[in-house]
């Protein structure tokens, strides 16, 4: 009961002026949701963490130029760096009788090579920060594109029904039928050789747009389906009949009447989608079919560190930690947004958990 009470609390906050004191300032559902979200400390902490990660990633060029003094995109196998006042090679020849192997320098915990170097002598810290830019850009970009396409598809399918719904829904079913990663890997493997050319539009194989679009496409059904379901429900409401009676066009019905009532579905899903798309991007890049060299993403840095796990584990661990923190913060934030926009959902979840 206490949970329910807490949830109910923000829904009906009576103004201090009271009913009898004059005009009552109405609050929109969005404002109420924002208030609920702001009161959710865990969600706010998650938001803070995510914003921090974004800011740190955006500062990558500043870090590389002014702190690490390095170009993290150019191999530096013959270079040296200063450690404790001495110049030491970045790639260190193996010892012993056979002098086998070359090992990159480990973490110096100083400005240069703070987390050490990768197998091409590049500053790992700088690459992790640059990797964040790519991973976040692709993650957010693909989630937004996915959301936009899904809203359009879901609106059209749900509103028009009939043949339109059949064609669009079956198309979504076809995409849905493939395991997400299998589909993404298949598309990426094909496109990575030549890039993508559609009419006048051309995307090179090394462009970040390629993984962004691939990831966006494979997740469209996962957002479009709930949107379509909401549209099917909303279009049966009385206010839609009223709008139709007033002569509203289909476009106006969709954009002005239905869309505002289903957009919360997308908003709730968006942080979770970003988290998912970041994971997918990392997986594709780890398999070398996502972000192409010399650009970095968290997935490519982990891939670079895979062969160094035994001697230089930080190369793989650092981007791994960044992925965990980002995905965790987005998932917690997503839960907070869901609770804020649809408190009854949390109540339902709470009851299920108790049962």
């Amino acid at each position, binding site marked *: 009961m206490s949970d329910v009470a807490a949830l109910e609390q923000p829904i009906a906050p009576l103004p201090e002026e009271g009913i009898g004191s004059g005009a009552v300032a109405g609050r929109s559902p969005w404002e109420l949701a924002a208030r609920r979200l702001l009161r959710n400390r865990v969600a706010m902490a998650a938001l803070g963490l995510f914003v921090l990660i974004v800011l740190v990633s955006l500062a990558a060029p500043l870090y590389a130029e002014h702190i690490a003094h390095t170009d993290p995109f150019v191999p530096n*196998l013959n270079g040296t760096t200063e450690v404790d006042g001495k110049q030491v090679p970045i790639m260190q020849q193996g010892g012993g009788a056979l002098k086998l192997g070359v090992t990159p320098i480990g973490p110096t915990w100083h400005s240069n090579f703070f987390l050490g170097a990768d197998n*091409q002598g590049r500053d790992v810290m700088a690459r992790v920060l640059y990797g964040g830019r790519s991973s976040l850009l692709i993650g957010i970009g693909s989630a937004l594109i996915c959301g936009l396409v899904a809203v359009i598809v879901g609106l059209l399918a749900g509103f028009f029904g009939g043949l339109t719904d059949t064609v669009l829904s079956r198309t979504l079913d076809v995409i849905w039928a493939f395991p997400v990663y299998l589909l993404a890997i298949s598309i990426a493997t094909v496109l990575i050789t030549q890039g993508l050319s559609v009419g006048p539009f051309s995307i090179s194989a090394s462009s970040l747009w390629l993984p962004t679009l691939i990831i966006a496409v494979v997740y469209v059904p996962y957002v479009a389906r709930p949107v379509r379901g909401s549209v099917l429900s909303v279009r049966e409401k009385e206010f839609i009949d009223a709008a139709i009676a007033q002569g509203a066009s289909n476009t106006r019905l969709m954009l002005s009447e239905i869309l505002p009532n289903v957009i919360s579905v997308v908003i709730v899903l968006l942080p979770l989608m970003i988290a998912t798309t970041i994971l997918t991007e990392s997986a594709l890049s780890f398999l070398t079919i996502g972000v192409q*060299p010399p650009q970095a993403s968290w997935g490519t840095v982990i891939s670079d560190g895979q062969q160094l796990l035994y001697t230089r584990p930080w190369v793989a661990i650092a981007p791994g930690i960044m992925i965990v923190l980002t995905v965790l913060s987005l998932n917690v934030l997503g839960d907070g947004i869901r609770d804020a926009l649809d408190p009854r959902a949390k109540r339902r979840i709470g009851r299920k958990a108790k049962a």
Partner: protein
Amino acid sequence: MSSRRSILIGVLALTVMAAGCGGGSSSTSGSSGGSSSASSTGGGGKGGTFTILANSNWGTADPAKNYTLQEWQLLILTHDGLVGFKRAGGTEGTKIVADLATEVPQPTDGGKTWTFTLRPGIKYSDGTDLKASDFQRVFLRQFTVPGPANGFYEPIVGAAECLKSPKTCDLSKGIVTDDQAGTVTFHLTAPDPEFLDKLGLPFAFAVPGNTPLKDTGNNPPPGTGPYMWDHYDPNQGAKLVRNPYFKEWSADAQPNGNPDVIEYKFGLTVEAEVTEVENGTADWVFDPPPADRLNEISTKYADQAHVNPLTADYYMALNVNVPPFNNLQARQAANFAADRAAYVKIYGGPSLAQPSCQVLPPNFPGYEPYCPYTTNPGDGQWHGPDIAKAKQLVEQSGTKGAKVAVVGTTDEVGKALTEQVVADLNAIGYKATAKLLAGGVQYAYIQNSDNKVQVGYSQWYQDYPAASDFLNILLGCGSFHPHSDASPNISGFCDQTIQDKMDQALKLGLTDPAGANKLWAEVDHDVTDQAAWITMFNPKLIDFLSKRVTGYQFSPQWYFLIAQASVQ
């Protein structure tokens, strides 16, 4: 890393052999290279089980079909050819010796007829007698199974038709056998000085005459060697046990083995394999040890590791038919800019690779050190990139600012080498980018001229010790097949003057191998001057063995001679 050894990268285009192999040098007389630092850690007795760990299996076990070093190292213990490479370490291991045949014959009919006489009394591991007519079956299977490099045997009369129409393959005129006399006679359409080398490969190993004309999969047919197959399960492993019918007839060609049992286990990660060998629970890691275990091996287990140079090249093929590298100065500029010290570091440092500018590897027939693309040239060695010279050549070529895509592979070494070459090209004024593809896709992609690949990363390991196996196959006019995925001349290089010299060397090889090798050395220097490749380095190989293994030997042809080692 494992693919470097699990597959003999010499995936030879069948048509190349037809186009290019008109004559050449015979390795019967020995190769001109030096020792490959084959080492021995003392003798040992017979008996015991030699346990090998590998990350993955080798696919089909049929000797007609398999083209991997991994299984070839076992097939040479279970099967024999008419002739074989001497089972010895160092350059001795490149010599052709008589195996099932009583002697290595001299060709007749101007090099077009070879007659072998079988040793009497040899039996297969199932107890049946070896017959001359079995070799009809061996070569028929090359075209019906079919073998992955059956172009090797195209010079045999009738083989060209078999390549086109395997179902109606008839080699009766090309291979004449007499079971009573025990003779096998090959009739060739043209002299082939490398014919003996090709007969020494597992594709030509004897199998019973009733062996099916299809891939036998996981059940290799019986052989005549000192071991026989107990089982091969691609998911678990393989086991060789002693062949009860084997009696040693030539210690040079097929010596009896030391271990009683040779066992392969599949499926562990390479890291786990190294740990098992360190702990003494297995005897040999087939896969190259991972980069981040090398220092540990070098410092703690140096006496258990053996490093040997390989007759192989790692290189970037420059497409001579597509800008900007259709310009000689641009190609030479790329070669001057190549930071071969960096390439060597990527592969594991100077202990594991040697920088190179030329096509033929050291210790190989026709090899004479040559490196014009270096600071302080003249001694044949590479000393460092000459960026100033490279920039000057780029300016002169008028290709400055050209976009260049370097197509590499996604494995650790391929990716790093590709990125380093991209950096090297950018340093002299090109706008280079990397394009990484999975190994299997990439090799076919860079060969096909339709893809207009400007720079393609590749490797080449010898099939047998002959200069033409590098020069003619990789840079001969006959090995460039436009619009085909099987065009090992990735650069599309064809210089008629150089090709004429290659043809001359091939012909000379039949009568004057030493003279032919001198000619091959000239060809090697000529193609290096034409800069169709950026040759990066010649790799070396680490064999990591358990403490209980003694008697290590390394053959340039078969690498670690497993059965000649002993387990205590």
